[in-house]
């Protein structure tokens, strides 16, 4: 058997069997398209971003970006980021919306998952139905809720019935209610995802342990509390992590429902960037901002991977067998 490749700590699964040289050849062959695409999307954009972010260029000038050097003003954009109140306001709003939305997603998702753990007759059907919101095109979901929250729309009609009198609030023109509407849309669309993930986690609890707990005298509530839930801590973290990251990217539903309005009440980070890019056309500033965001998210990603180390490490080590 040939010695493991010196490039990596452990060889690929077939490397030993195939021999180092041939394995390397195949490895190179199969991974180069992906590497090429990766390089393509990383190399040039990074150079451009760094370059432009150090200038004061905007397409309004009429000059192509290559000549942006003429407006070099170094780190001005970055200083501006630090003092940009609107940015932090947008960030704050984003965090508020995302945290509240994810909170509800977890609440409802966990509750539903607990109901689905024990098998019952119509479970597969109910399962499919509950998953549907997740599979709706987000832009269309945005449109759905736009319709639902119309002043003459069904939501107001339902509330009217409950309250007993006519309720015709214009949700999307009210600062607070617009945020509520957006959160409702987010929770509707993504609770099924949290449900899906948590259910998978709950069902991976070994059945024997549940039987054993039962025979030791535990009732269902005790089983959930002492056996099931502690075991899904990792899964819960994954679900929350994913929803938080996706939440920060929030754009589709917001853009279609409110476009950031009324005023800037629902202007999230992505919408803010959008406005600076297409409204103000301050591309240099946005480039700098983009770079900062990318670096921040990458660091957060690293942190997340470190957090998910138990499951992720099993993943990667597993692959390195």
């Amino acid at each position, binding site marked *: 058997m040939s010695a493991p490749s010196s490039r*990596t700590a452990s*060889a*690929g*699964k077939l*490397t030993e*069997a195939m021999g180092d040289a041939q394995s*390397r050849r195949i*490895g190179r*062959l*199969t*991974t180069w*398209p*992906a590497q090429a*695409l*990766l390089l393509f*999307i990383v190399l040039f*954009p*990074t150079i451009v*971003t760094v370059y*432009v972010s150090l200038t004061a260029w905007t397409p309004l000038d009429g000059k192509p970006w290559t000549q942006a050097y003429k407006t070099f003003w170094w780190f001005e954009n970055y200083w501006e980021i630090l003092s940009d109140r609107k940015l932090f306001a947008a960030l704050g709003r984003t965090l508020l919306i995302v945290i509240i939305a994810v909170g509800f997603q977890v609440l409802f998702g966990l509750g*539903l998952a607990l*109901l689905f753990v*024990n098998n*019952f007759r119509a479970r597969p059907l*109910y399962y499919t*139905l*509950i*998953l*549907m*919101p*997740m*599979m709706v*095109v987000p*832009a*269309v979901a945005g*449109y*759905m809720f736009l*319709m*639902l929250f119309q002043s*003459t729309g*069904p939501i107001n*009609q339902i509330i009217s019935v409950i309250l007993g009198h006519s309720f015709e609030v214009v949700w999307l023109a009210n600062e607070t209610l617009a945020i509520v509407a957006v959160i409702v849309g987010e929770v509707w669309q993504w609770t*099924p*995802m949290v449900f899906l*993930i948590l259910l*998978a986690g709950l069902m991976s609890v070994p059945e024997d342990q549940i039987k054993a707990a039962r025979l030791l005298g535990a009732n*269902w509530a005790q089983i959930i509390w002492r056996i099931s839930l502690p075991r899904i801590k990792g*899964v819960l973290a994954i679900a929350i992590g994913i929803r938080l*990251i996706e939440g920060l990217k929030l*754009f*589709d539903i917001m*853009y279609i429902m409110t476009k950031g309005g009324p005023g800037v009440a629902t202007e999230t980070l*992505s919408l803010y960037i959008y406005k600076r890019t297409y409204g103000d056309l301050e*591309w240099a500033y946005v480039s700098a901002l*983009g770079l900062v*965001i*990318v670096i921040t998210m*990458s660091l957060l990603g690293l942190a997340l991977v470190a957090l998910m180390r138990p499951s992720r490490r099993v993943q990667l080590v*597993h692959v*390195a067998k």
Partner: protein
Amino acid sequence: MKFSSVGRHIVIWIAIVVALFPIAWMTSMAFKPPLEWTSAAGTVSWLPKEPTLANFEYIFTGKSSAYPSSTLMERTALWPILSSLLISTVATLIATIVGALAAYGYSRHRFGTNLPFALLQLRLFPPLAVMIPVMIMWAYLDLIDTWWGMALIYGIGTLPFGFWLMLTFLEDVPVELEEAAMIEGADPARIFYRITLPLLKPAIATTALFVFILNWSDYIMALLLTRKAWVTLPVFMNDLNSAQTGQLYGAKAALGLIAIVPPLILGILIQKHLVRGLTFGALKQ
């Protein structure tokens, strides 16, 4: 298990009603004539009083007897639908094939150790944060508003899923089978075609469908990188306004209905593997 069966069913049914309500509402809207959703209507009724296919007629032919004659569309919905279809399919091919190959190279030959994390990183940041350089690049390469330009960016965007999904599926295929074939004297290409690939067919199908759903559902990138010629369905839907009557709710609803059908069907088909895809393989069902 006696788990207060009735209570459980009631709660689940409430959840199902909530889950399906917006979809149902939009469906109902899609079949309402303009009279029932333009501002002349007053409060909106739940079911169409006079169900009609006028909305569908409108979006596919550009006009309809039920619509005021002044609201003519520049183009019908047919093209954006085909555009979405073409772009999503090509992008899916790119993401799946490149991803599968790379996953194979990584899993079986430990090449490209940067790929797993690098591709994960790609999904971490908001597209908008990186759109400027992409737009500049795309403009420079003449890729704006072209189907291959869109397919390319979509393919790159969903490559992480193509890679990770195939990676976890590959791990499920025991390497012993390929090793046994090697002992028999088969060469790598043959092993791949005769052993690995057939075992991966369901995995490839699942990955492809998953990626397709994601590509089909994109809004932001199409918004930024298309102008007129290759506008995709979600973008087209949102642009469906008329100067006179504002938002064409019925038409949009009809389009929305068409837009959500493919992902819904595909999603149901790959239900079992959704967890795997969404958590990048950290969990399997």
